[in-house]
């Protein structure tokens, strides 16, 4: 593609460095970097409908986040400057967490792969829940132990295992352990073992 004549004839004046020098705005953080467009736009943080107080979901430092919401969508996530942990800062991952939660790659429907299947199928959420409940009860029934091989009382199933929890909430882990314990499933593990 050839350059247009208009482009080759453009003056050097809009060159930011020249503007900076001319305006005395040496660091380029003031008037010299503003344009009409700059003045017309508003940050998403200012136009948000509400802000939720949150915590970064990646590592265990526990950086506080502010989640800016507009029209029921997350429009921005920033570090919370009031936090004694992160003082408003986020690392590359924390800074990408808006991208994480708004990603078009996220799953929003249940996918199901039947035995020997070669493709995913879609499943209604409640149907999927019913199917899982059936399978849990069947696995529990088929692998139930009242006594172990030494005749000791164990009242458990060795047929159901679980892995995960380190990215979940305390309240969630509490219910998970409570339910599995009540159903007799004991092979319940998470990242802390890894």
């Amino acid at each position, binding site marked *: 593609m050839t350059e247009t004549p208009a482009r080759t004839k453009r003056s050097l004046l809009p060159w930011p460095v020249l503007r900076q020098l001319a305006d005395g705005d040496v660091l380029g953080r003031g008037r010299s970097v503003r344009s009409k467009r700059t003045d017309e736009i508003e940050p998403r943080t200012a136009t948000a409908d509400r802000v939720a*107080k949150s*915590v970064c*979901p990646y*590592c*265990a*430092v*526990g950086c506080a986040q502010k989640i800016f919401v507009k029209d029921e969508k*997350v429009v921005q996530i920033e570090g919370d400057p009031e936090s*004694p*942990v992160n003082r408003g800062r986020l690392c*590359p*991952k924390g800074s*990408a*967490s808006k*991208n*994480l*939660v708004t*990603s078009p790659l*996220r*799953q929003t429907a249940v*996918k199901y792969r039947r*035995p020997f299947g*070669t493709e995913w199928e879609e499943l209604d*959420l*409640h149907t*999927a829940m019913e*199917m899982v409940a059936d399978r*849990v009860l069947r*696995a529990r029934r088929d692998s*139930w132990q009242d006594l*172990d091989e030494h005749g*000791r009382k164990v*009242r*458990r199933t*060795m*047929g*159901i*295992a*679980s*892995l*995960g*929890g*380190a*990215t*979940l*909430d*305390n*309240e*969630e*882990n*509490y*219910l998970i352990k409570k339910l599995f*314990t009540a*159903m*007799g499933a004991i*092979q319940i593990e*998470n990242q*802390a*073992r*890894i």
Partner: protein
Amino acid sequence: MAEAHPVGFQWVVEAKKRGARIIHVDPRFTRTSALAHQHVPIRVGSDIAFLGGIINYVLQNELDFREYVVNYTNAANIVSEDFQDADDLDGLFSGFDTETRTYDPTSWQFAQEDDQGDLGPAQADDAGDSAEQRNTASGLQNEAHGMQVGSRPPRDETLQHPRCVYQVLKRHYARYTPEVVEQVCGVSQEDFLEVCRAWTENSGRERTTALVYSVGWTQHSVGVQYIRAGAILQLLTGNVGRPGGGIMALRGHASIQGSTDIPTLFNILPGYLPMPNAEKHQTLTEWIDAVRNPGSKGFWANAGAYGINLLKAYWGDAATPDNDFCFDYMPRITGDHGTYRTVLDMIDGKVKGYFLLGQNPAVGSAHGRAQRLGMANLDWVVVRDLFEIESATFWKDSPEVATGEIVPEECRTEVFLFPAASHVEKEGTFTQTQRMLQWREKAVEPPGDARSELWFFYHLGRMLRERLAGSEDERDRPLLDLAWDYPMHGDPEQVSSGWGEPSAEAVLKEINGYEVATGRPLSGFLEMKDDGSTLGGCWIYSGVYADGVNQAARRKSRHDQSFVASEWGWAWPMNRRILYNRASADPEGRPWSERKAYVWWDEDKQEWTGDDVPDFEKTKPPSYRAPEGSDGVAAIEGVDPFIMQGDGKGALYAPQGLIDGPLPTHYEPVESPFRNLLHGQQANPTRKEYRRADNPMNPDPRSPGAAEVFPFVFTTSRLTEHHTAGGMSRYVEHLAELQPEMFVEVSPELAAERGLEHMGWCHVITARSAIEGRVLVTERLRPLRVEGRTVHQVWMPYHWGQGGLVAGDSANDLFGISLDPNVLIQESKVGTCDVRPGRRPTGPALREYVEGYARRAGVLDGSEGPVVTASAAAQRESAAAQDGDDQHAPHQREDQ
């Protein structure tokens, strides 16, 4: 730290600005090294030799903080005369059973006051079956229990008695000289002594030194002993319980601390109560006494209240004193039910269903091939995640589909992939790495059918109970009697249709505990009763909902409160920000120095006060001495800062709780190119192994040809831009773009030796797999001189798999399964390997290629040499210290 916890690292930089000296010990030069005053490259897997060297420096030069050590640690305690050290027995401690590869710790105990007779009840209780403890990860009394020693062992506060802990320690580490450190770790004596000087000069009354480790430290066959070595050093230098001191674990997941406190782990229940064991905990009393441990000091004495409050929280009205609060409803553990054992059981067809909750073991767990083959041999898998991760697609695009080991048309596993709500789409608490809970508000509704785990498990439980309603089967009582009634909120349509979101705040209130009759939230665990009048799901979290206020939701600006920031979130226990902070004051209760004042005794008010909540009974004076015969809380004296330990003292020496010995000893990693320079015993003799053809370990260095087949050492860690197994980063555009490709980092010397071209391809081979990546040649890795020869170390990130926006081979495929005996965590930070230029073979040729290596190394059938390699004489002598019946002939070996 700067790489994997960059925002936490800002505080290191702040400290540096105020004059702190920063030392970074790491095999590789990283962004942390770039900002440190000194970077010490070390051979992976030699940390105990390094720390042991510093301990030796402290003891030989008597640079310990003596007043702290005498009063606050067990340095003065006298050890049994039957104890024999690893230094005397070729790397074994006394009491080793060669057949089971475990210790009878009877000879490790403290001497008795009358210096004869049997062990006191608190000690004898635990000198039992350590093979069982290894299997159930209960040696450490379920992770957080204090040592259950008697409250008054004999002491020599002059530290001169030849069998006092101080002298035992001094002899144990005497061989860890700067020369040995240089030989074993590849660290020059000059660099090493600089670290020793910095550590000791910066510790004492006026100054403190902090030790920060990342949890790769736990991923070793001696992982627990690494951390013990750090603890010994910090206790000797008086750096525990004081501001600017301590040992800080940089944990790697937003609520991994929470998922340990309120565990989704097989061996523990909330608040580190043990999961009942079929043998040891047949009755409620046995279970409680195992924790309470009559005869010991400290707050575990109230275990009855903690345990009964949990049972009451689980089974509500059904739990009464008459039925032992439904203790019989608890399923029992009988052995190793850890995640690796379970995965091997999947391969063997013993497991039917598997839930994966925000976890991607196909990439994140050691020995990825075993993980995926296990999943392909189940009836069903439920994956709950934000994205379509590798653990959900093993049946269609895993590496084993390429090799032909998994054929989709023949794989019977049913897979459910449920979309999960993200952290902004649900409310609840995370517990960060300093034990602080922070409540998150819900910002928006989750998209489509995405739901929280709270929703999923609540409704799963509801449906199970509905299906079982009316069942007469006794096995269903625990589900039917379960207290499973939580208020619903959220989308009104979902609430009215019966599919609402349970209130996380109601769950938090149950965790906190409340009075059954009135519903009044408890102010803390001291209010918990053992008569069923209160309930509480996790005693250490009690207080998080004190006064009916969600304390974890507190967000008072850091500008408006003290530097301790006690009003931001809530830390367990009882909002104490530095544990054991009684140790920040001297025995009389005065600050050690003006500079390091933190918590002290106020003589006028007759109470402990200071910047933090005192981690001590508020009105118990420093002068308090326990009455004769007391135990429990009453036995904690005014000078016992370690209120969860059976003797109130910091454990330099650990007579109980550790499967692999009372003191950290250098053992080589399971896979190492080097012989153990210190002992005949090569690697941890008590490690948990699964010897089978699908889990071969690379041979130990005495095997012929081992050094030629797998000559290099490799390790893995994180990149700033990715997160663990990649499930939350490889699917995120910005992060995928920042780090788009798997790579293998090597030194220029290794690149020259193997013909590796910068930015070209290479592949790394172990007995488990071969993976490929781009070559990154940098001087961040340097060859080290170890035991007189050069060793090359290779570094890899472990974030990739076949899914996501940027795909690549997974470094965890290279590791085998070999575990620390105390906690059953795998050794996945060090192994041996070969590195070759070019890409790896594909398809079935990959397995042939890997098997060719395993065959040449002599480990194709999973039989790689003996575990116990100490001399026969040492084995005999060690076995002689076993307690009577437990003895087995030393030549009977499990591994031969």
